[in-house]
């Protein structure tokens, strides 16, 4: 290589004195720039413990932190400093940093599925005892959220925001097309009938449809309304290979491609709407392209920017068992936090009036503590009379029809999603029949359960015990005997059995 004249000349150039000088100057410049940066950056040292809160860049966060400081002072707790860390809010970052020993003190988890996964990794602190002392146990939040916070009987966080989806109704859109407003609760048949009449009235014949009855209907809600969950009562087997799931998929397909009550993915993409805080849906709801959108109370933050929309609320349609999903942004404590007591106090703050009053006023989803949804400030905010019907509906639904997702200890939520949705999409795209899609999803999830058991033999005894219990449940059900609720680990089935009087 040295024999290459080009290389030789390059080497000479590189090692010649002027080049060294250039390098030296660059190095000195970088050192100087670093020194200047360090000088300009606010001091990192603090005279009190610093909590790093890995959360999103929501503009409400600084005010929440200030409120936490006041709450600490009022209750005589030692002061802390909370530094927001939205740059590391990506789930993968949280896990990798967590297992590397450098996680933030407070970690936001988006939904119970994520809580379960990160807890399984071992990154989350068990806050059960602190929750008892600080009064932020599952009893301080909505009953449907218990299984999103508790794993194997231990609590790992407390909700910061509670999500629950209902159908927002744009009353002006219904009036514009001469259609009656939807009832609060409706069956699948009533929904379909009203939807067909609406789209027929709203879309001139022979033209491309631009007005839809609703933006989307979450298929699992319909499935649960027919009494079918992803898992059986003991969460030992996936039950998606059930004709009820086939029925739901076919129904959604019909509503999308035959009746045009819902836009297809392509039709949705075709709306060139600027994405706002609540996504394109809010803008399309306002413009009348969607008469209803399925969304949470936090969408009101966006609606308030539009002025006084005439809002109503309807539940997702049901096939006998009204329900909707409830979930939360759950604040958790990093297991290796150096200021764990202070971090746990932050969770206690989330259950306090100070924090909940902020969520009530901002309309940023439901407040974590349902006790604060009974006030006039929540139900009838004086500056937003157009929302009055919505607030009460969300609060009532969260305590009645809101049921959290079921998470089997024998399969990862991501594996469930990766098995369910491609099969569903395949059916919607015409690749598989509904029966094939249902069987495919169930087979894959059940295979994943067996894989977990092979990888973690320690789970096998509990699995065998639950299998035996499942058999017993099925025998008792077949005999028409009420089943002890304690036998049922699936939150959906617990609620379903209770409502239908099948439980002891």
């Amino acid at each position, binding site marked *: 290589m040295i024999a290459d004249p080009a290389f030789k000349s390059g080497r000479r150039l*590189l*090692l010649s004195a002027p080049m*060294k000088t250039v*390098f030296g100057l660059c190095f000195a410049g970088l050192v100087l720039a670093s020194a200047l940066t360090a000088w300009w950056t606010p001091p990192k040292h603090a005279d009190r413990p610093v909590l790093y809160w890995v959360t999103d860049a929501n503009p409400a966060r600084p005010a929440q932190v200030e409120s936490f400081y006041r709450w600490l002072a009022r209750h005589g707790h030692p002061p802390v400093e909370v530094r927001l860390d939205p740059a590391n809010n990506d*789930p*993968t970052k949280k*896990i990798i940093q967590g*297992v*590397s*020993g450098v996680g933030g003190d407070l970690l936001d988890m988006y939904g119970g599925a994520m809580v379960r*996964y990160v807890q*399984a*990794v*071992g*990154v989350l602190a068990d806050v059960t005892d602190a929750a008892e002392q600080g009064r932020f146990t599952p009893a301080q939040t909505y009953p449907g959220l218990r299984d999103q916070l508790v794993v194997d009987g231990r609590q790992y966080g407390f909700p910061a925001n509670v999500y629950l989806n209902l159908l927002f109704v744009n009353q002006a859109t219904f009036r514009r097309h001469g259609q009656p407003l939807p009832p609060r609760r409706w069956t699948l048949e009533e929904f379909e009938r009203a939807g067909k009449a609406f789209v027929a009235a709203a879309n001139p014949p022979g033209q*491309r449809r631009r007005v839809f009855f609703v933006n989307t209907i979450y298929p699992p809600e319909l499935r649960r309304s027919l009494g079918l969950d992803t898992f059986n009562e003991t969460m030992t087997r996936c039950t998606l290979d059930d004709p009820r799931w086939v029925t739901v998929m076919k129904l959604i397909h019909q509503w999308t491609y035959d009746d045009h009550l819902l836009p*297809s*993915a*392509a*039709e949705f*993409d*075709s*709306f*060139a709407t600027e994405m706002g805080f609540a996504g394109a849906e809010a803008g399309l709801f306002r413009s009348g392209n969607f008469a209803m959108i399925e969304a949470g109370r936090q969408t009101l933050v966006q609606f308030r920017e539009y002025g006084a929309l005439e809002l109503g609320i309807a539940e997702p349609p049901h096939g006998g068992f009204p329900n909707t999903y409830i979930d939360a942004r759950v604040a958790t404590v990093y*297991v*290796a936090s150096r200021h764990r007591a202070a971090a746990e106090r932050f969770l206690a703050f989330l259950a306090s009036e100070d924090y909940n009053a902020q969520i009530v006023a901002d309309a940023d989803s439901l407040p974590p503590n349902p006790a604060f949804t009974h006030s006039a400030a929540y139900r009838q905010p004086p500056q937003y009379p157009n929302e009055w019907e919505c607030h009460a509906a969300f609060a009532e639904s969260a305590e009645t029809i809101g049921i959290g997702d079921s998470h089997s200890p024998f399969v*990862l939520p*991501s*594996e469930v999603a*990766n098995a369910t949705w*491609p*099969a569903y*999409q*395949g059916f*919607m*795209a*015409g*690749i598989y029949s509904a029966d094939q899609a249902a069987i495919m999803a169930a087979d*894959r999830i059940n295979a994943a359960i067996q894989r977990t058991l092979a*990888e*973690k033999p320690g789970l096998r005894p509990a699995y065998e015990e639950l299998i035996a219990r499942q058999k017993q449940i099925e025998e008792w059900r077949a005999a028409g005997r009420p089943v002890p609720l304690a036998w049922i680990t699936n939150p959906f089935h617990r609620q379903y059995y209770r409502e239908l009087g099948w439980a002891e």
Partner: protein
Amino acid sequence: MNARQRQHLRAGLGFLAPQILGFLAFTIFPVILSVGLAFTNCDLRLHNMFKDASLQFVGWENFTRLFTHPDFWRFFGNTLFLMLGLPFAIAGSLGAALLLSGRTRGLAVYRTMFYLPHFTASVAIFLLWKKLFNPYGGPINQFLAALGFQPPEWLNDYYWAKPALMIMAFWTAVGSNNMLLYLAGLAQVPAELYEVADMDGASRWQKFWHVTWPQLAPVTFYIVIISVSGGFLGGFEMARTMTAGGPAGATTTLSYFLYAEGFDTGRLGYASAVAWVIFTLAFVMTLLNWKFGTRYVND
């Protein structure tokens, strides 16, 4: 090596040290580690500083599990399908380089315009193309509809999603580094060869086919090697940004599958096996290219 040379060497190594150390720590070490992990049951849920489960050697189990995965061959097929666009992309780069190698006024402007996609953030390009492929309001479909065609739903359509990504990849590839390499290669072609060809009365096509193309063979060979390797390893950003691997897995490539297995499930041993299978595929293709491609280069 005399004292002065040793001093120069030390200085050179000193300047390179940060880069070398970073490369060793963040590239070479993880690569070597992943070889070992591919033969273990390494799982984030079992093996980390907060867990005391011991790492177990599982032999080829991760690999056999991968080859029997219901979707692996489909995603492999997706990856190969997307690579079918490579010859067109390479030809496009060559065409652009030929256009931009002449003596035209404002050549620097044209070159910059062609190269612009290369230094535009890829996510911005993906979002732009998502708009272009918009089934109803997008300009592509409006154009096709104006011509009387029934336009497809592109990214929303199971069968059209991959061709849509290939079209976009072609556009980005035309003005990529390949074009710069071809431009550099064209500048190296001795002018005498063209003069001789002119004296022989060769047409433009004959000059291209008998002079330019053989002279560019080393560059083409390099581009093919890099493009094929990139084809096996690529597709992640596109899938993540534009389609999330859908519809129904139609645009899930091996690299996207690797990410999903690694981070959605935490099974790092298995994900490492996926990574090494991808590497092996790329490596084998490179060897084949060397074996069968170099003869044209040497000729």
